[in-house]
């Protein structure tokens, strides 16, 4: 974990945006001995189908609770991308559900990673776990948190009957991300702006 990493997760209501953010926060604060503060939009902006949460991860107690310019932005809808992408910190990471989000121009220096999370979730038989696929993918491409801590946080955040499915979803997203990072590294594009991988 780094001294301070600010993350925003955003998408439609019902996609499990808040749970995805909570899993990331829980992994850091409970299973990795760090600090995490999660806040979420409660105002009129939280209505009408959009949903967004902010998580700050740190090795020290977190004082200022809000995120203005995230280091990592995870988007699961076009609207979330349009609204929040301009706020990304220079050098930041954009993670997108690539079949729901069309990425147009991004400022140079932003690393972009795409994942067909909904499709991967459907392959497991339940579209609803797309948020956990995103968390797995996030874990692999950012390398911010110990994958075991994330896995434990996933298991701890869902009802017992849903644990197996959610852990499969996590692993699926994680493997997809790990493969993508590996492929990009072989192409020598690590650390450079990359376009999305569109073929799994």
């Amino acid at each position: 974990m780094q001294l301070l990493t600010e993350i925003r997760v955003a998408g439609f209501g019902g996609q499990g945006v808040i749970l995805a953010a909570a899993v990331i926060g829980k992994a850091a604060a409970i299973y990795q001995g760090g600090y995490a503060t999660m806040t979420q939009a409660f105002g009129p902006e939280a209505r009408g189908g959009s949903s967004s949460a902010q998580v700050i991860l740190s090795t020290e107690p977190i004082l200022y609770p809000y995120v203005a310019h995230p280091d990592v932005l995870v988007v699961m809808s076009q609207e979330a991308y349009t609204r929040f992408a301009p706020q990304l910190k220079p050098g930041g990471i954009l993670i997108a559900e690539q079949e729901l989000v069309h990425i147009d121009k991004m400022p140079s220096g932003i690393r972009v990673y795409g994942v067909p999370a909904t499709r991967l979730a459907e392959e497991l038989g339940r579209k609803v776990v797309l948020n956990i696929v995103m968390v797995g993918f996030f874990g692999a491409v950012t390398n911010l948190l110990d994958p075991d801590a994330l896995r434990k946080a996933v298991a701890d955040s869902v009802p017992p009957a849903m644990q197996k499915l959610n852990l499969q979803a996590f692993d699926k997203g994680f493997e997809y991300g790990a493969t993508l990072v590996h492929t990009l590294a072989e192409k020598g594009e690590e650390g450079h702006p990359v376009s999305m991988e569109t073929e799994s």
Partner: protein
Amino acid sequence: MHADPKGVLTGVHFLDGDHACCEGTLAAGARFAAGYPITPSTEVVERFASRIPTVGGIFIQMEDELAASIAIQGAVWAGAKAFTVTSGPGFSLMMEHIGLAAMTETPCVFVDVQRGGPSTGLPTLPGQADMMQARWGSHGDYGIIALCPNSPQECFDLTIQAFNLSEEFRVPVMMMMDECVGHMTEKVVIPEPDQIEITPRRYTKLPPEEYRPFEPREDLVPDMARTGEGYRFHITGLTHDERGYPNMSVETQDRLVRRLLAKLNPLANGRSLCETENLEDADVVVVSYGITSRVAQRAIQLARSRGIRAGKFRLITAWPFPAERIRELAGRVKAFVVPELNLGQMVLEVERAAAGQAKVIPVSHAGGTVHNPDTILNAIVEAAR
């Protein structure tokens, strides 16, 4: 006495402040809550309503805040520990019954998750503008206790303290949260029940024929009687004598009302809860509370990194206000900087206590978000000149 294990959700959790506050009420032994839903406080009683059937107790969603704030007092006199939860508009409606709780010395807890005001204001955004209302909102002279948590962990810890203090002093205790702390999710550690100290209600040891319900002990707080054990007592909002009967004499009024304030003196002075840092060499002391104290801490760090001798005085008990400690500091620092999410409330207390011995600089904010740490930093820099 230790906490009843039935109410204690021992473990490490990732909870928001509202839910942590609810766990605090259960750990403290609250087995009755009445409320009327209002953003951003509803989650406290929502969780209580879902948890209480397995713990054993009652939640009633009342018709309004007046009803909620009086139902809890009935429950207290019947033997329960009880609380209600609200936000600004509902807090306004509860004022009459806060006065009744103060006058009848009914130990109970009011949780106010503050949002931007006045009136309907900013339902989903933070404010700290109910601080004076908490102290002075009901008519007449009386004292209350107000606690200001700045994290979900403290929403748990201080809620237990709130119940304990209400039993010790027999006053309504206000948990002055804010939307930011209430809706912020962080790690919350809930200890084992035997690690949680609970102040039991102090019941009289006298036989029914000798018991006088408002006869104070040496600490100026009277003992209560167990309902249903043969003790006959009368509770009234009218000025009453030690027997609890109405008595409109000037002497009785003077004796009663002075005692309602004086019983809180130990908390106002030596026992006030606060968190201090770097006061020894401080030129400028930042006085803050609730969520603002975290942002202020950031500003203090920034000031220190610039070589400014800034110190921290964080109010945990906002009421009774720790006037003596501020007065003592005022004699040796240049200035106090007081950021708060209102246009100047607790800063008036700092001014009163400082009594002209040190500059007092408000950093006001109408609410809706928290301060930018730089704004507080600028005030510190200015004050240190």
